[in-house]
């Protein structure tokens, strides 16, 4: 891995690794397309990668499963793999770096000092906050304090994956460790959320390329996600949408509709409520994505997707403590109760009227 001190550009490092210019320009073109930018921006990306020193990145790992790193290093495009690993100067990454122990921690401290205000903090996973954060410690320090300390002088923070962006499984109910996503732990810093479990490799690369090229964070939506990758729902780009509009739905796994590739809405597909790029980039070298393989989207890039279960049903339970019922169950009970109340009132008023008729004593004066 290239050293920071050389201040090499991405292009320098790529050439060192035997990537020719043609492949490099191809990569830049692909990135522009992935970010939804015009072809005229390609030279800008080329120039940035050629001239700007590589982006110093500190990559921290908290409570997580490392699926984001797995996704990142398996970046699909044939030329991307080398490029991505060399695009940033990854001088501290618990998982990937050569250094270990004290030397590694030293490294982090040095980058924080030498590149104060310039380095990007990439966070994979989140920090447990219960009991002073003891449920995740690195080198004797709580991850919570490492996170906050490292964020202090960062230029920007990238929250990789659903863990860092919105909590994911470790923050799902009942969240015993008090795990919290990055944006709830760090304030006064530009944070970009890149949710997904894991996020798509092309999306991760795209975010980094954008930051390197334009020296700023991409435009974000209400959830702090880059609009270019999370601007639309799976449902609005899904190739099964015509079956949705037609009203043709898979009713059970392996039924006739499933064989014909009908819409997975009734099987609990979260496409209508999930913002991600899966139908565009797909997964594993663009081979397929869940819906393409006949399984509904589980909404992995959405907040609380673990709590919004079961995955194979459309509606979840009302999140009111003590009630474990779906809206339909509650609705029918409420409507039933209203019917019973109305019925009782009706019967008693009829009974009252019948007895009064017998007494034959209407009040002649009104009241």
């Amino acid at each position, binding site marked *: 891995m290239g050293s920071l001190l050389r201040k090499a550009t991405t292009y320098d490092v790529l050439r060192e690794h035997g990537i020719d210019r043609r492949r490099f320009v191809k990569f830049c073109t692909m990135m522009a397309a992935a970010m939804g930018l015009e072809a005229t921006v390609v030279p800008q990306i080329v120039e940035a990668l050629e001239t700007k020193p590589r982006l110093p990145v500190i990559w921290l790992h908290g409570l997580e499963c490392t699926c984001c790193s797995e996704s990142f290093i398996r970046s699909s495009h044939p030329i991307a793999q080398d490029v991505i690993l060399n695009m940033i100067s990854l001088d501290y990454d618990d998982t990937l770096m050569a250094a270990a122990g004290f030397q590694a921690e030293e490294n982090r401290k040095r980058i924080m000092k030498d590149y104060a205000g310039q380095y990007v903090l990439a966070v994979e996973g989140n920090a447990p906050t219960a009991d002073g954060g003891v449920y995740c410690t690195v080198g004797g320090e709580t991850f919570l304090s490492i996170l906050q300390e490292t964020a202090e002088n960062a230029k920007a923070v990238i929250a990789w994956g659903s863990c860092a962006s919105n909590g994911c499984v470790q923050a799902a109910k009942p969240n015993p460790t008090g795990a919290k996503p990055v944006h709830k732990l760090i304030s006064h810093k530009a944070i970009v959320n890149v949710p997904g479990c894991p996020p798509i490799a092309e999306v991760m690369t795209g975010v980094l390329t954008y930051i390197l090229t334009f020296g700023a964070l991409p435009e974000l939506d209400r959830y702090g996600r880059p609009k270019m990758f999370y601007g639309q729902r799976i449902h609005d780009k899904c190739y099964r949408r015509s079956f949705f509009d037609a009203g*043709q739905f898979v009713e059970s796994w392996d039924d006739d509709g499933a064989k014909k590739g009908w819409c997975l809405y009734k099987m609990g597909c979260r496409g209508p409520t999930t913002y991600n790029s899966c139908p565009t980039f797909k997964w594993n070298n663009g081979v397929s994505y869940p819906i393409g393989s006949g399984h509904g989207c589980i909404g992995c890039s959405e907040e609380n997707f673990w709590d919004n279960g079961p995955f194979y049903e459309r509606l979840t339970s009302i999140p009111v403590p003590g009630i474990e019922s779906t809206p339909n169950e509650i609705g029918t009970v409420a409507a039933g109760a209203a019917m019973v109340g109305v019925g009782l009132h009706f019967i008693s008023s009829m009974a009252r009227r019948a007895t009064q008729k017998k007494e034959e004593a209407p009040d002649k004066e009104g009241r």
Partner: protein
Amino acid sequence: MSTAVPEFDPQEIALHPEDYFRRQLVWQLPVRITHWVNAACLIVLFLTGLYISHPLLAPSGEAVRHFVMGRVRQIHFVAAMIFTVSFLARIYWFWMGNAYSRSGFPYVWRPEWWKDLFRQGTDYLRLERGHAHLGHNSLGGVAYTLFVIFLGWCQIFTGMAMYSESNPGGFLNRVFGWVLPLLGGSFTTRMWHHAFAWGFVVFAILHVYIILYDSTQYGNGLITSIISGYKFYQKGDFKED
């Protein structure tokens, strides 16, 4: 006090009917129009909403020939837009209309409102004729405020937010999009929209029953009043009478 409509001497009534029965224009035209537009929209919205959440009877053959879900959603959205306009019109008329258009509204800082609430509640439970109203009574006011105004806003905000999702960054999305993060995301917004929808069913049951009951109990022509606008009252119903 009697439970049914008081009976008067038929001969006297025939001589001076206006001494015994009078009618009063209570529901002005905008109230009547918005009532039926809202009622029709709510029925359509609930039924199409149920289909959207649980589509049935898949058509066979190529998808290109069918547009069932699409059409049902389209009807839901058209009804939703009409409902929204009519709902807002009724709210406008709350201030612009006659005193009856504001009657019963929970002015919780006024003791009379609480007194009327208690009196009406007990009258309905004791099956007594009790005190007559021309406008809404306090109990009705509570019901309309909770089931119609509050739930109406809930449905409009959650519904519009979901509707705006198909055009991110568009006008509706900028106006209503904030609802989605507030309710914990697009998925939970849908869940609440669905749960609130049942509130209208509960309302319709209570509403139609109480209209029928009240109309028979008071003999005030309440049922036809929402078409004609006139309610009837009789000797002894009001102090000034």
